[in-house]
């Protein structure tokens, strides 16, 4: 392939720089602008620490849920195609196309105490809205297709001959699933997990609506950052933003390096 021209390369670097590197660098610069002592103190801000804890608790439930759903629905769509599965294949992308605000509003309409079936839950003493379950629900919703979009193309590409061969060699379905299917899609799923994690800890709009944004109780890290900026405590906000950015960059780096290393070893198993 021909090397891209110098102009094209400069354009790409400028574009990525202006959109990504510069603002991200600004966050770092601002967070470190008051020195290490101030940063240390800001990291121990009580409201922010509670928000971090809540975000972690949300991620711990939302990410595995999304992986289970993503892998399951991918297998269903690829291996047992039907009219219904084809519809699901399209519908599953809706959360990506929909504004998170809409997602939040729809969830609230459905699950609020006077909502479509929120009233039924309320009668049972379950208050879904403005609580941990609501935040998990919104987080799963907005990241719904992130695992399956990685896994589906890979499942299609590898086909079912490996699984059928394993069957002729005497393997039972569960063994085939764990030794062949899951091993084949592991990296695609792991990449989907990383994207899901980044999305879940970074989600703002949908969570803002369904959580009620109650400081110290239902405030996630993103909501805490937002609240700090709104109350002119922008330094605290930048410190929170720094943490968020670090986690995302770290997650992508870890998965990228691990993938690259194994890819060199057994190139064949990856796309």
């Amino acid at each position, binding site marked *: 392939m021909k090397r891209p021209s110098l102009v094209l390369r400069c354009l790409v670097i400028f574009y990525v720089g202006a959109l990504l590197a510069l603002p991200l660098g600004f966050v770092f610069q601002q967070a470190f602008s008051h020195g290490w002592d101030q940063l240390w103190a800001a990291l121990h801000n009580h409201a922010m620490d509670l928000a971090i804890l809540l975000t972690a608790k949300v991620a711990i439930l939302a990410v595995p849920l999304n992986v289970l759903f993503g892998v399951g629905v991918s297998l269903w769509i690829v291996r047992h195609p039907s009219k219904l599965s084809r519809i699901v294949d399209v519908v599953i992308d809706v959360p990506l196309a929909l504004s998170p605000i809409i997602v939040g509003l729809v969830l609230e309409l459905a699950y609020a105490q006077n909502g479509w079936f929120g009233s039924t839950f309320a009668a049972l003493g379950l208050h879904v809205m403005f609580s941990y379950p609501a935040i998990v629900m919104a987080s799963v919703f907005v990241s719904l297709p992130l695992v399956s979009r990685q896994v589906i193309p890979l499942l299609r590409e590898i086909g079912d001959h490996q699984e*059928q061969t394993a069957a*002729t060699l005497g393997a039972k379905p569960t063994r085939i699933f764990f030794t062949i299917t899951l091993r084949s899609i592991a990296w695609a799923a792991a990449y989907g997990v990383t994207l899901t994690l980044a999305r879940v800890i970074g989600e703002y709009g949908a969570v803002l609506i369904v959580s009620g944004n109650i400081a110290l109780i239902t405030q996630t890290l993103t909501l805490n950052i937002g609240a700090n900026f709104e109350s002119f405590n922008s330094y605290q906000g930048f410190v929170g933003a720094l943490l968020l950015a670090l986690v995302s960059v770290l997650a992508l780096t870890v998965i990228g390096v691990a993938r690259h290393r194994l890819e060199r070893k057994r190139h064949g198993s990856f796309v």
Partner: protein
Amino acid sequence: MAVSYSGVTKSFRGRLVLDGISDVVNEGELTALLGPSGSGKSTLLKIIAGLTPLDSGRVSLAGKDVTNAPARDRHIGFCFQDYAPFRHLSLRENVAYGLKVQRVPRAQRQEQVNELLRLVRLEDYADQYPHQLSGGQRQRMALARALAIKPDVLLLDEPFAALDAQVRGELRSWVRALQQELGITTILVTHDQVEAMEIADRLVILNEGRIEQAGRPAFVYDHPATDFVAAFLGPITSLGGISYRPHELELVAINDTADAFTVRDVVRLGFEVRVVLKADEGTSTWVQLTHDQAKQLNPKVGQRFGVRVRSRVDSSSQSAPSSHETTHGSAT
């Protein structure tokens, strides 16, 4: 009888792929399921393996009915056309898979895998991953993996189709030698009649979900039961409205006993020479000559020759049809 099936019928989305077919495969034989694409031969192979459910009919292995047994209980070695290597496992781990499933102890397993790798001449590649192997090596890996479980029957779906011509030829005779050495009952699917004739003890020719003819390759070639079989197994030419194999006709000097033809074209095909001829009344035919025959007669375009049916000296020594040589459809 190692493998038998009867009345096997299968439809996909309303299209009949296999139309109630039956056959018996003898112990230790290599049978080629031969037919054009879409004739149902691969579907039949997967039904025998238990990978595709059938609509009706029965399949039995060594006299035991396995129609409803899952693939994992049939003890059949199966190789896909794409070899289906486990891409995340090394060659050694691929071959060991079936032994691990059978819980063969580690030391014994390693010994067996090494032996299999020697058998398929891949011992130097044991720790490579499938993507590092050539097509021929992957094919041998798939064979070793299938043989690891000591299957009663080996099923090969278009085993040489994805290989280039030279490797294909080498591997073909190697697989044949291995099959005879192990004495394992083998069914091989192919659309290549030359391959089938070269490798198989017995041909089963399928067309549109039915068996057109089954029998020894030489017998089927010389005595095709249907026009389809005749045309599919090799070139046919005609003289006086009757079909012949090209080598059955000979070119002679003009005389009373042979029909007179004018040479229209002479095509050199490697060792053989094809002579295209036209009769005065307009019918045309062609004759295949060996290099030596062509040198002797030296046919040129425009020259006139007689064409007649070569006298068959070996007609009495033709192999007699074996007990299960069957023909279906109308004979020509």
